[in-house]
C-alpha cells in the first residue's frame, strides 16, 4: 500500500506531545542509571529550541518487548503520573529547551551499545533516525554501522563520557564549516 507522507511536527506540539517524566526512562534513584544530555543545532550552528527527541532501547536484560505505561495516567484525574518502577518501557520523549538542550536518564541497554533516537523539529518535514552509542559499551571495530563509517562521521554517533554515568551527545541537523553533521540513518 502507498504510505502516508510525513509532515513537520510544527511549532505547537509542546503542549501536546511532551509528558511528565518523559526523559526519566530509568526507575527513580536506580544506582545503574546513566544520564545523557546535549544540544540540537541547525546548519548555522544555532541551537534548535523546538526539537523533540524520542528514545527507544532494549531493557537492561536485553528484552525488546518494552512495557506499556510510559504515559501512565491517573484513572480519576486523568493526570500523567509517570512510569511505575516495575516495568521498563524503554521509551522516552523530551523536548529541547530554549537553549536547544535536552537531557534524559535511562538504564544501560541490554545486548547493544546504543540508544535509538528519532529527532522531530519545526522546520523538519520528515523526522530523522540516529543512534547514541555509549562509549563504555561500544566496540567501533565490530559494530556493523560504526565499522563502515569514516572516523569523523563515526565520531558524531559516539556520546562523550563525562564521568562514569554522564554522557554528552549533540545532534547537528546540518553540518557547518566547523562541525560535522550527525550521521542519520535510513532503514529499508
Amino acid at each position: 500500500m502507498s504510505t502516508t507522507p510525513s509532515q513537520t511536527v510544527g511549532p505547537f506540539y509542546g503542549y501536546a506531545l511532551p509528558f511528565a517524566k518523559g526523559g526519566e526512562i530509568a526507575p527513580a534513584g536506580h544506582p545503574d542509571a546513566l544520564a545523557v544530555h546535549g544540544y540540537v543545532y541547525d546548519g548555522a550552528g544555532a541551537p534548535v529550541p523546538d526539537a523533540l527527541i524520542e528514545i527507544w532501547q532494549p531493557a537492561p536484560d536485553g528484552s525488546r518487548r518494552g512495557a506499556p505505561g510510559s504515559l501512565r495516567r491517573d484513572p480519576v484525574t486523568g493526570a500523567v503520573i509517570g512510569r511505575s518502577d516495575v516495568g521498563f518501557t524503554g521509551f522516552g520523549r523530551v523536548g529541547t529547551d530554549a537553549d536547544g538542550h535536552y537531557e534524559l536518564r535511562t538504564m544501560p541497554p541490554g545486548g547493544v551499545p546504543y540508544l535509538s533516537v528519532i529527532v522531530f523539529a519545526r522546520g523538519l518535514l520528515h523526522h530523522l533516525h540516529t543512534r547514541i552509542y555509549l562509549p563504555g559499551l561500544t566496540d567501533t571495530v565490530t559494530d556493523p554501522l560504526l565499522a563502515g563509517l569514516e572516523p569523523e562521521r563515526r565520531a558524531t554517533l559516539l556520546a562523550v563520557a563525562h564521568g562514569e554515568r554522564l554522557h554528552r551527545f549533540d545532534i547537528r541537523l546540518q553540518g557547518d564549516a566547523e562541525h560535522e553533521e550527525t550521521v542519520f540513518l535510513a532503514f529499508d
Partner: protein
Amino acid sequence: MTTPLTQGRISEEIAERREAYTKAVTVGAPERSHPDRGYAPYRSSVLRHPGKPLVALHDPEAVELSGPVFGVTDVTALDHDLTRQHQGEPLGERIKVTGRVLDRDGRPVRGQLVEVWQANASGRYAHQRDDHPAPLDPNFTGVGRCLTDDQGAYEFVTVKPGAYPWRNHVNAWRPAHIHFSLFGNAFTQRLITQMYFPGDPLLAYDPILQSVTDDSARERLVAAYDHDLSTPEWSLGYRWDIVLDGPAATWIEEGR
C-alpha cells in the same frame, strides 16, 4: 530594504519543485511519498535538514525493528473526545474523525498509540507561544489520544480547527489541519503528519502540504467527508486512513 516575500513567489517555487519532481519521475526516478527535507518554499527547512545522504542500514538485529508499546494505563476513556475535556462545550463545528492505521502490506496496526493536537475553531492553539490574536476557547485544549483497536481503527471526536496565519511569507495561512502522531510495531514505522480537510481553498497555497510533490501522495493527506459517519443533529464525519512506512521486516520476539 528587502523585498517582502510574497505568496506569488512562494507559489512559483512550489510549482518549480513539483515540475522538477514530475519530470524526474518521467525519466525513471522513483516515486516518493515523503517530502524532501530540504524544501526551500518552507523556509524553516533550509537550515534544518541534513546535507549528506542518510546512511542505509541493513541490520536484522537493529533495535529500530522493534518499538515501544502502549496500553490502557497510557490513555483514559475520555482522551479521544476533545469536546469533553472541560466543563462546557467548545465552540465550533463538531466533527468525528475516524480511520484505520495499516502497515505497507495492509495489515492493521493494533493496540498502538495515536496522538492528535490541533487549533481551536478560531485557529488558535492552546500553546503559550501561539500569539495569533484569535480567541482562546476555555472549553477546548485540542489534545487527544487513543489506542487503535483490533482492526487498527482509531476515532476522535473534536471540532473542526480553523486556519491560522504564520510567518513563512507575507499573508501565509495554514489550511485547517489536525496533527497526528503514530506508532507502528517498529520504531522505523514512526510517523508524525497532518490531516487536512477536503475542499479547503488554502491547500494549494501551503508550502508545508505542497512539500509533498507527488500528487497522489499529497491527496493521501486529505481526509474524505463521509456522510455515513455524520450523526444527525450532532456532528459531521470524516474518514482518514493512515499507512505507515517502514521496512518489510520487523523484529518479532516469540510470544509477542
